[in-house]
């Protein structure tokens, strides 16, 4: 009896627990996102996986064509741009509806964008809204107002504090309406006034942070904090059943690090364009398990392949493509795109053992590089050889990037000579950048005063002191380590310098980058919008992403002139000049290769995956052929 009681208890507990949980239901499209969604509040988002879901449950004024990234109408059916490029008038369509049936109005956009410019919201992309007239000024004004609130409220009772916070908030809202270039003329007309003409403004408006939110829902979750006087948000509104969107899908399930489910939104004005009735986004933590799940057929699309053996999978794909090269060329000549070619090949010539056709590498809108510290001295106060552009150019020219891509990373990445992936921005022709040329590299190093004077194989300056040991900082990972090792060897061999690898935990390495506490450091950058400034801005003096601390008044001036330039053609020429200055001459960073994204899907089953480098995939356009 004594033994049976605990066992019975245990079994009852187990049965209850198992019955209480429910497995996920199958959907028309099942995919694995790049990671768990961080937030579904569009104004606070900053991760690709979040934007991918946002594109499904919200819709901005305009949207991108998934294949060409041209601007298509969204909630706005048309718009007028003033001759000076400063005023945009959007005409909202009458049949745009929230998922609860409320009409989507111009006031909803004002509400959402105002949230982004309130520092209380802590929006990571708040600075995108600085392009609105008075936006930056308002953001800083409200920060000042909150700082003085704490002083003023000291010693007041809680009731008085609440009253004071409310007064300040009312004042801030009035000020926003008066000073920021954003106004709803009526329910269906939104007028946006900019600080400077921004030719890529429409491209920005299709981006997640500019999507509207349903004001009554959000407002019910916001309260004033009497301690700080700022608005505090409770995040419950981003979860079903509270979340109200205006996009092709509604969110029906979201279980943290388990799954997220979308169902067709019948109230969406363009519901006819929605391919799958339901979409299931499954979270899988382990890269290897994700590949196994794909192999069993329960996953239609794996949107990020990060297993260690991915290079071997790419080699199997390569074998398949080589065997079918003739037919593939033929189909390409007929004008078929990548996905159509792969679908035809899958039908005509299934992969043999040792081959595969379900892994796909697409060029991404980003670049892998190494930063040179451009400060006059290192943080430690030590001499910094990389303050000299000639040294930076020499180090750039002595790296054989093809060797790294072919033998170290082995994923078919295109080698990079510029930060901006060539051809990724319409109307912009990029610079040539510094090519591999070890002899030229040694000459430039000698011009900078570094040559082997005593025949020991290492370079010294005029006084005979050797080149400081080049320390290469990178975040802990097998890939970064292998790449850093490879370039270190090339520098030792070609230039006669000593190197040292400095591997740090990811967060620690990140902190060193922010503090410019490095000599050479691995870096990575992805563009946010379709304009060269999304890459070039990081070289501006004082930019928060200028890890190199590069500062050049001539470059800053060029960028400022491009900001003020009204003629889009002339503006692009100024930006080309600025890019050439960086890539051909100043070399604050050494671009290594342009990033690729690896997907797994069966080309005969999954339709409409976009191959555009911007990596957005509109879930409502994807379809699975059963």
């Amino acid at each position, binding site marked *: 009896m004594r033994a049976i009681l605990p066992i019975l208890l245990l079994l009852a507990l187990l049965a209850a627990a198992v019955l209480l949980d429910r497995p996920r239901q199958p959907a028309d499209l099942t995919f694995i996102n790049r990671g768990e969604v961080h937030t579904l509040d569009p104004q606070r988002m900053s991760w690709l996986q979040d934007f991918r879901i946002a594109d499904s449950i919200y819709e901005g004024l305009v949207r991108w064509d998934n294949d060409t990234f041209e601007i298509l109408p969204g909630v706005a059916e048309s718009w007028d741009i003033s001759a000076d490029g400063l005023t945009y008038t959007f005409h909202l369509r009458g049949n745009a509806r929230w998922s609860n049936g409320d009409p989507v109005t111009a006031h909803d956009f004002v509400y959402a964008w105002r949230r982004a410019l309130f520092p209380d919201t802590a929006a990571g992309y708040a600075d995108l809204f600085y392009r609105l007239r008075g936006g930056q000024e308002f953001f800083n004004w409200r920060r000042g107002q909150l700082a003085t609130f704490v002083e003023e409220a000291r010693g007041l009772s809680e009731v008085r504090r609440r009253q004071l916070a409310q007064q300040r908030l009312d004042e801030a809202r009035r000020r926003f309406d008066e000073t920021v270039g954003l106004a709803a003329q009526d329910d269906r007309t939104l007028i946006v006034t900019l600080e400077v003409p921004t030719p890529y403004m429409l491209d920005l408006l299709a981006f997640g942070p500019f999507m509207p939110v349903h004001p009554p829902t959000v407002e019910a979750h916001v309260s004033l904090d009497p301690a700080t006087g700022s608005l505090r948000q*409770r995040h419950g509104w981003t979860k079903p059943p509270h979340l109200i969107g205006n996009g092709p899908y509604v969110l029906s399930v979201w279980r943290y690090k*388990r799954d997220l489910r979308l169902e067709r939104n019948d109230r969406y004005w363009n519901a006819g364009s929605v391919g799958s009735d339901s979409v299931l986004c499954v979270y899988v*933590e382990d890269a290897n398990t994700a590949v196994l799940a794909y*192999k069993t057929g329960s996953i239609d699309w794996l949107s990020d392949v990060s297993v260690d053996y991915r290079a071997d999978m790419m080699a199997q794909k390569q074998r398949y493509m080589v065997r079918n090269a003739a037919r593939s060329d033929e189909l390409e000549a007929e004008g078929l795109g990548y996905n159509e070619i792969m679908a035809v090949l899958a039908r005509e010539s299934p992969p043999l053992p040792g081959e595969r056709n379900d892994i796909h590498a697409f060029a991404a809108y980003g670049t892998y590089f190494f930063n040179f510290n451009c400060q006059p001295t290192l943080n430690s106060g030590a001499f910094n050889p990389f303050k000299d552009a000639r040294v930076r150019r020499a180090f750039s020219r002595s790296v054989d990037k093809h060797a790294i891509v072919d033998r170290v990373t082995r994923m078919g990445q295109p080698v990079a000579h510029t930060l901006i992936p060539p051809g990724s921005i319409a109307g912009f022709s990029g610079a040539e950048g510094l090519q591999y040329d070890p002899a030229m590299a040694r000459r430039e190093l000698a011009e900078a005063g570094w040559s082997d004077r005593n025949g020991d194989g290492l370079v010294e300056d005029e006084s005979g002191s050797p080149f400081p040991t080049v320390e290469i900082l990178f975040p802990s990972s097998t890939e970064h380590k292998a790449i850093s090792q490879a370039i270190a060897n090339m520098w030792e061999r070609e230039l006669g310098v000593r190197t040292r690898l400095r591997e740090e935990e990811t*967060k*620690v390495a990140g902190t060193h980058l922010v503090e410019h506490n490095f000599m050479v450091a691995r870096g990575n950058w992805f563009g946010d919008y379709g304009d060269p400034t999304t890459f070039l801005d990081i070289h501006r003096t004082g930019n928060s992403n200028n890890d190199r601390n590069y500062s050049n008044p001539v470059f800053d001036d060029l960028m400022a002139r491009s900001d003020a330039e009204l003629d889009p053609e002339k503006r692009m020429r100024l930006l080309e000049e600025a890019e050439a200055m960086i890539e051909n001459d100043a070399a604050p960073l050494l671009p290594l290769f342009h990033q690729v994204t690896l997907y797994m899907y069966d080309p005969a089953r999954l339709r409409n995956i976009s191959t555009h480098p911007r990596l957005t995939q509109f879930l409502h356009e994807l379809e699975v052929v059963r």
Partner: protein
Amino acid sequence: MTAMLIRRLVQVPLILLVIYTVTFALAWLLPGNPLDKPEGRRPPVEVQEAMKAQYSLDNPFKFYISYLDQASGLAWLRDRGRGGGDEAAAERPIFNLGPCLQYEDWSVNEIIGGALPVSIVLGLVALVFALAIGLAAGVVGAVRPGSWMDVSSLLVALIGISLPSFVIGTALLIVFAVWLEWVQVAHWGSPRDLLLPALTLSLPFAAYIARLTRLGMIEVLSADFIRTARAKGVSETRIVLRHALKVAFLPVLSYLGPAAAYVMTGSFIVEKVFNIPGLGQHFVNSVLNKDLFLIMGVVLTYSTMLVLFNLTVDILYRWVDPRIEQA
């Protein structure tokens, strides 16, 4: 018994306070900014400051006190005493473990509330497996020491302890999910999904239990009272299962307390391989992300469970073996 219980219960909050203090100090000293993304774009300085301002991360002492206030339930009691407070206060749970810094839409309570039941179910099943396998192997080995059955059970125990669970787990997945298609990969929520991960998780425990049982059994089987039982003509099965196992089980029981806490708070690796939404992953990920609130939430949950399970085992011990009470 009652005096012991009261004494131990009073100790619980003190132990937790010490654990909280040490964890807080270590977590606060972790390098890096919890709000920074590991890769990619950083907003301008004023935006970064606005992001930081939402979680009073500027003063460690203020943070230490206010977290203690919220997590211990004192703040909740105060709110109730005052008659509710505002709507934000009404939504707050009794033990408020704060927001998750990385996954901003979730609170630590929601995360632990979702993950803990999963880990408990998986842990209980694994514990049952471990007991069944371990006791069986241990008894078999002890009854015929040196026989082929003993050697093979020892071998299984050796494999269970030395093979890492990501190898066993992946191998089980490839055989049963990819080849035989009996179970699904990365699927959770139906009883069938429990089998492979519970088996993987149970093996090291089973191995340890087998060793404990075998040693205990061999010792007990040569004891006087067993000889008496044999002399009385009691059947061998009855001797082993009823008389000997009861005594040999005691060391296993004392091991079950910490084992239960460990097995129920999840194993990072088993959860990763089988994609189980349990608690184990948060131990590792929260530290990597420097997610202060989550780190403290999972550590406090784990320590509470560990302390309570040890207490339970002590009580069970007295119940099973009255000699302890007298001693």
